[in-house]
């Protein structure tokens, strides 16, 4: 800085220049760090291999309108890991032999529901949500029908794919 005091108006505009440059440069630095950081944190990881179809079992033995809980092992991509975990599906065949596989959790708060033989309805023990055999809500706090797996039938074997939110797709 000069030791000789410059004329007042000149000094003020010089000062504005410095202050403006300080704010401007810091804004650039913050943006160059902040934007990649947000992208890094918010963008989903690049999709790995499309989810495989998992075989769950034989559907010939299903009795119409009587759901059966079937257990299978599924690979789940969890960050940098692929974990093989046990999973279940409630599989039901309707009167016209159409098969549906429901996700095992109640759509209210995620409790495990079960099939109540006496009432012929799915009952969630947590808050008493009731669902029909086709997944529709009968009563209780559940906000939407049961979640459904994408399914493929290969001869007599049932294959299960992704789990879709109930009421999202009509099938």
């Amino acid at each position, binding site marked *: 800085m000069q030791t000789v005091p410059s004329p007042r108006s000149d000094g003020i505009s010089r000062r504005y220049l410095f202050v403006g440059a300080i704010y401007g440069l810091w804004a650039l630095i913050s943006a160059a760090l902040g934007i*990649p950081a947000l992208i*890094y*944190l918010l963008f989903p990881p690049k999709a790995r291999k499309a989810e495989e179809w998992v075989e769950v079992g034989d559907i010939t033995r299903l009795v119409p309108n009587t759901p059966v809980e079937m257990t299978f092992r599924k690979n789940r991509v969890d960050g940098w890991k692929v974990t093989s975990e046990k999973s279940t599906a409630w599989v039901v065949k309707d009167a016209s032999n159409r098969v549906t596989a429901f996700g095992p959790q109640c759509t209210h708060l995620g409790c495990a529901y079960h099939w109540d033989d006496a009432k012929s309805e799915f009952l969630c023990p947590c808050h008493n949500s009731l669902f029909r055999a086709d997944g529709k809500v009968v009563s209780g706090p559940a906000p939407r029908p049961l979640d459904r797996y994408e399914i493929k039938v290969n001869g007599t074997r049932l294959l299960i794919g992704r789990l879709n939110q109930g009421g999202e797709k009509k099938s």
Partner: protein
Amino acid sequence: MKARWRGINEWLDHRTGIHTAVNKFLYEEIPASSGWHQVFGSVAVFLFLVQAFTGALLAFNYAPTPGDAYNSLRYILTELTGGKLIRGLHHWGASMMIVVVVLHMVQVFLYGAYKKPREATWIVGVVLLLVTLAYGLTGYLLPWDNRAYWGTVVTTQIAAQAPVLGPYLTRLLGGEGAVGVVTFARFYGLHVLLLPPATLLLIGLHVFLVRKHGVAPAPGDDALPKKPFYPVQVFKDTVAIFVAFAVLLTLAIVARVPLEQLADPTDTSYIPRPEWYFLFLFQTLKLFNGPLEVIGSVVLPGVAVLTLILVPFLDRTAMVKVTRRTVAIAVVLLAAIGWSGLTAAAVMSTPKEKSVLEIDYSAPTDWLQLSPQEMAGIGYFRHENCISCHVIGGRGTPVGPDLTKTAIHKDAAWMIAHFKRPSAMRPGSSMPPIQLNDSQLNALASFLLKLNEGNATALDNAPDFAVEGALVYQQNRCGACHLVNGVGMKIGPPLNGLAKRQSRSWVEEHFAAPDKLSPGSIMPPYKLSPKDLENLTSYLFALPE
């Protein structure tokens, strides 16, 4: 509006004193001679903050155990958008921080700013330099690749040589026996839990001392009026910070930070190298052999640090102009020459050949899963220069169709017929027929069938040595007896995991005379050219287990 804002400010200041404190900090008076040469301290603090920020971001997706560290880092690099950039910033930021801290010290040293009453400021500064180096040392292990592992093996063994303290240091670093889970946990704990708050405290103390004694004046400053820190010096600091950041960002974008293969404690052929800023120590160590080694590894560095701490007490002369401090200038020059010489010697003695055959795991490596036939297909694709008319993975010239999009709709028979007479299958095609035999065309087709938009870039990354190695494998029909990635026959042993079972030299000799090394083997001898032998062996050694 303005009045209201001032009201809020006053209210806040009354309760917290923040406004007064900031003003006191900004309008601190500094000597008239202050200027561009004093920006390095601010830049170092800025870089520390960048390290803390990018370090925290990395930690959000990083699992600090030897079992998971490598995989989670690969996940950051290959699957998260911006992951490479964040790691690049952290990696190069570490190097830049050391550069800037050293520049800061050199400036203070040249100007003699450590003189009475600023001795304590200098000593805290030396401790901060050591802390910066400690970050480099502990952070080096965290990727848990071969480089990290073997580098740390050497470090912990050097620590063990320290007179008297050696065994205790080893135990503290968890390096007793071998570098393993305990060492890893200790290094991680130091790197993220202990060092950062220590750094903050030390920076706080350092800045407090600078403010307490004031910025060191140059001779002649007494006669001149002081000036405020803000805005002119803050502007200069900001410009310097901006330049440093621009360099850092460019490095992070342009310069590749490699990730080697997962740490392999049984890999006896690995030659560890420290980070560039430790190379001079590494080279110094080579000058001392046998019982004298401890001089190079512990005594000399210890004496150097002690001398650095004692600088203000060794030089107690009065302050003179920087241009007249000839001894200081000579010391800096000598140190620079010594450092550069040792570093250059270390760089020149680094074996070069191996790096060509290294795989960069910081990029997707889907090609490792391909069968040898498909890998050979990549080779024909490259040899026939298909890329001059086709696009794969966003690379190439779009004269013909983008093969990542069209190849999946055809089958092998169609493709082979098309390769032989392009216009017969696709009338009007200007593609020339490919002059390869059926088995070669088959390999090319099998590669194209594997290609999709998700893996195109990853397959494009396949290193030349592996592709050429697979061509040698394919041409010699090794698959007629051996299994690779689940493809081939099981007459001979499967070749995945060969690197674990045999040494490189054994495999290379085995090609020439199989029955000599494994008696009773029905494998015929193969006379391969040295280049083919190298590529094939490297390819087989790169295969996943």
